[in-house]
């Protein structure tokens, strides 16, 4: 068809609209930072509900398995120290899925709040990456409070090696991996499938993630030991055990070699991120 040309005489209208003359990197990084700032602001304003959301599960686990059961002699006295890394790992997993997957599902399906950010001067992939970075930061804050909670609940049974840098490095890598998984699930599932998050993913993560037991202790149940390798919680729990659990009687705890657990987390992160960004993109651009 032919191009329609205007007949209005308003072409001479003046403009006071000015596009800021910045380079592309600066435009994109400013948008990224402010989108992150928006998420941090909203979380900070609802900090108490956030703490309640992320601290109830570790509180229950630590109280029962770290205090009650060793107290009544149902577990070894050393159990709380090798259980704490598992609690940290599963707390981050739950915090990520609760923090991002649920809100993203609702956002993409009904609220559409994210549209304003998708129309900001930033590539869509970076909007997805911001979600991952924010969720990782949120989970790290939740982790700090979980350590405090553990310190208060476990009392003298709170025994953690002074490997702060290694612990922090593992936590950063693992929170990113969980956040990327949360992006993937939040983008792939529709809000009517929200029950899957709890019934399938959270339960599986908890029971196949070497939270309650060490990976090497499963050597007699080979099938389960192999299944646990498909769960990123396993690698985090084992890496944290390597970094956190002090030697008992001079003998270090037998864990998965650190290089394998780091590799497991790295591969999980990259895979989840690649698929997560792809699915997110597909959902927001038609």
């Amino acid at each position, binding site marked *: 068809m032919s191009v329609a040309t205007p007949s209005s005489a308003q072409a001479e209208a003046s403009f006071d609209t000015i596009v*800021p003359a910045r380079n592309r990197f600066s435009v994109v990084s400013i948008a990224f930072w402010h989108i992150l700032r928006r998420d941090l602001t909203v979380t900070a304003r609802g900090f108490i509900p956030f703490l309640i959301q992320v601290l109830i599960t570790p509180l229950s686990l630590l109280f029962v398995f770290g205090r009650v059961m060793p107290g009544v002699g149902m577990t070894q006295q050393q159990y709380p120290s090798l259980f704490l890394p598992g609690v940290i790992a599963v707390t981050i997993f739950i915090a990520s899925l609760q923090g991002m997957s649920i809100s993203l599902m609702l956002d993409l399906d009904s609220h559409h709040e994210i549209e304003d950010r998708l129309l900001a001067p930033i590539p869509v992939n970076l909007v997805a990456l911001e979600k991952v970075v924010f969720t990782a930061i949120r989970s790290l804050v939740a982790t700090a409070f979980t350590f405090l909670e553990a310190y208060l609940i476990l009392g003298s049974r709170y025994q953690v090696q002074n490997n702060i840098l290694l612990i922090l490095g593992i936590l950063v890598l693992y929170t990113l991996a969980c956040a990327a998984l949360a992006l993937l699930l939040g983008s792939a599932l529709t809000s009517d499938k929200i029950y899957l998050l709890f019934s399938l993913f959270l339960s599986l993560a908890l029971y196949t993630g070497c939270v309650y037991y060490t990976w090497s202790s499963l050597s007699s149940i080979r099938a389960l030991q192999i299944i646990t390798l498909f769960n990123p919680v396993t690698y985090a729990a084992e890496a944290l055990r390597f970094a956190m659990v002090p030697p008992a009687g001079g003998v270090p705890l037998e864990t998965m070699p650190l290089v394998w657990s780091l590799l497991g987390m790295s591969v999980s992160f990259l895979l989840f991120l690649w698929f997560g960004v792809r699915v997110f993109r597909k959902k927001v651009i*038609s």
Partner: protein
Amino acid sequence: MSSASENPYAIEVCNLVKRYPKAAANAVDDVSFAVKRGEIFGLLGPNGAGKTTILGMLTTRVIPTSGTAHIMGIDVARDQIAAKQRFSVVPQRTNLDLSLNARDILRFHASYHGIPAAKRNALADQLLAEFGLADRRKDLVKNYSGGMTQRVMIARAMMHTPQVLFLDEPTNNLDPQARLFLWERIRTLQGRGITVLLTTHDMEEASQLCDRIAIMDHGSILVCDTPAELEKLVPGGTSLELHISVPQQVPEHVLATIGPSETPAEVSVLSQLQQALGSLPGVTKVEEIHDVRKAEGQTGLSILRLYGEDVLAPISQVSHIVAEWNAELLDLHLARPSLENVFIYLTGRNLRT
């Protein structure tokens, strides 16, 4: 592509096509148009005509199957970031940030676009006052009415001082007062030199607001011109609308004059009556209108529209023919020139069906 300063067009759309996977037809089918800077341009058409898909392609949310779209001289598909800096979108459905109050929504939007803190604070307060939202600026927007929500969305869209504003069904579901308020605001924005492209299925909105209108149906632009020129498309300007209930069969005394029909169904009776009316002197076209009332089950009701240079002249003959055919005349009125008539004239369908 010439530079933005030399280009008189704010929006240029060239042979744009969108075909969704597994769809039987193109959602947007070879659409081209150009919007001059400072114009208010309307895409008018029924739901499903492809208006929102065009908007999606112009605003980076829908990838075109083929064709190009330029905003202020920038190819939207090739340089999304530069394009996003120059336009704003007010979508059909609410997409406000429910966790924030109105002022924060405006300020965060501006910050995404790199507007410095002092300027975005001042601009937010100015726009909130302008849009009558200053008193409620610290309330969470989830407690806002439909009209207020729409005002916040337009105010938000203005926060990064865009050159082009896209409004998707801007006054849909608003009460008349809120609608008039928004029309006034949109005209003010035009006064500031902003180019506006809006989609609507509201004839009145299109004719009141738009400098030019493209009428769309089934993914294509049927015609594109000023409202006044479009209204001239209907022959004679005024048309005569008959609401009639037709008999099951053509009366025998009529059959004797026009000959037997092979299919004596109601449709056939109607089309024969249509022919009879069309042969009246001064009538250039008789069209059946597919109206929502018929779709809702009033099967006896048929609506015919007569076009001609002077449709008042044969009015007595029309009533005579209707009576002769044993049809019941339920309503008869003159349809004055309007965009609705233009749409009906072009498509044979009511816009709201």
